[in-house]
């Protein structure tokens, strides 16, 4: 099989699984990352603690690309501000834009996300926008300079799986950017399924953070994403119906 890499803003990755680092102990991050084979890990930016508190950067294996999100942003301006601070904090040029102004379901605001994408892409960021899977918004994000599209499978943190299956399928079909399915994936089998559909990568956090054995679940996700990708590249076999002997439709041809 020829070389198969995930390319985001000119950067190449072997792994197609993006690991979240929220909601579990810092001590488990390294194992989760290594077991999953993840090369990208997400982070959030918050007010710093004084007095020598633990620094998450010390727990992330070297060589792993940091993908700070803009969680906490309620509009484009705030997302831009957080992204710039992240870059200043030494996190590189990657940013996952997350603009949320709905505290119950935490659904992303596509219109503000498009605005933020346009500004940050122009500033040289590798912009990965988290979005509600709307085709028109995906096209706008593409035009705004996004490096990938990150549609949600289900509301964040719900582990409900591929609720938006058909809409993600449409975006994969229509957009030329890599499609990274983010949020709501609850099981490795769901990650595998969306990779079989042609997603470029999967990102998961809660599914791993809420598992009984976090490093083991990270490993399962890494393997599932790999299996799904391989199946996609291999071309799924046909479910073959028995051919009909008669020709009711084409019989007129004689």
């Amino acid at each position, binding site marked *: 099989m020829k070389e198969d890499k995930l390319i985001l803003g000119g950067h190449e990755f072997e792994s197609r699984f993006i690991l*979240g*680092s*929220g909601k579990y102990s810092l001590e488990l991050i390294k194992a989760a990352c290594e077991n999953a084979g993840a090369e990208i890990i997400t982070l959030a930016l918050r007010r710093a603690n004084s*007095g*020598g508190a633990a620094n*998450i950067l010390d727990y992330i294996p070297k060589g792993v690309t*940091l993908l700070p999100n803009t969680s906490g942003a309620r509009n484009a301006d705030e997302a831009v501000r957080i992204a710039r601070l992240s870059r*200043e904090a030494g996190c590189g040029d990657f940013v996952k834009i997350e603009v949320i102004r709905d505290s119950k379901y935490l659904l992303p605001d596509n219109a503000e996300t498009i605005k933020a994408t346009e500004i940050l892409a122009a500033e040289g960021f590798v912009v990965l926008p988290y979005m509600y899977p709307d085709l028109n918004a995906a096209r706008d994000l593409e035009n705004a300079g996004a490096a990938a599209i990150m549609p949600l499978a289900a509301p964040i943190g719900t582990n409900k799986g591929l609720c938006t299956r058909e809409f993600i399928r449409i975006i994969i079909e229509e957009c030329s950017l890599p499609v990274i399915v983010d949020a709501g994936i609850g099981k490795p089998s769901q990650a595998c399924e969306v990779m079989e559909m042609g997603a470029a990568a999967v990102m998961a956090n*809660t599914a791993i953070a809420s598992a009984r054995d976090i490093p083991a679940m990270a490993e399962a996700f890494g393997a599932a994403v790999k299996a799904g990708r391989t199946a996609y590249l291999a071309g799924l076999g046909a479910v073959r119906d028995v051919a009909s002997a008669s020709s009711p439709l084409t019989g007129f041809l004689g």
Partner: protein
Amino acid sequence: MTIINGKPEAEAAGKNLADYLKEKGYPEAGIAVEINGVIIKKSEYPGRVIDGEDVIEIVSFVGGG
């Protein structure tokens, strides 16, 4: 009074930013500072004296999805 990460700080004014951060035990790597909405580059920390009217945000990374 100077506001740092949302809290009034009486002792900050008059110190330079680099000294203040060190004194308070903030990590050297992985933080960013914004004063009155403007990001301050690391190289400017020693030369930036904190004013009594400054509103300062000091941020660093935490786990997130």
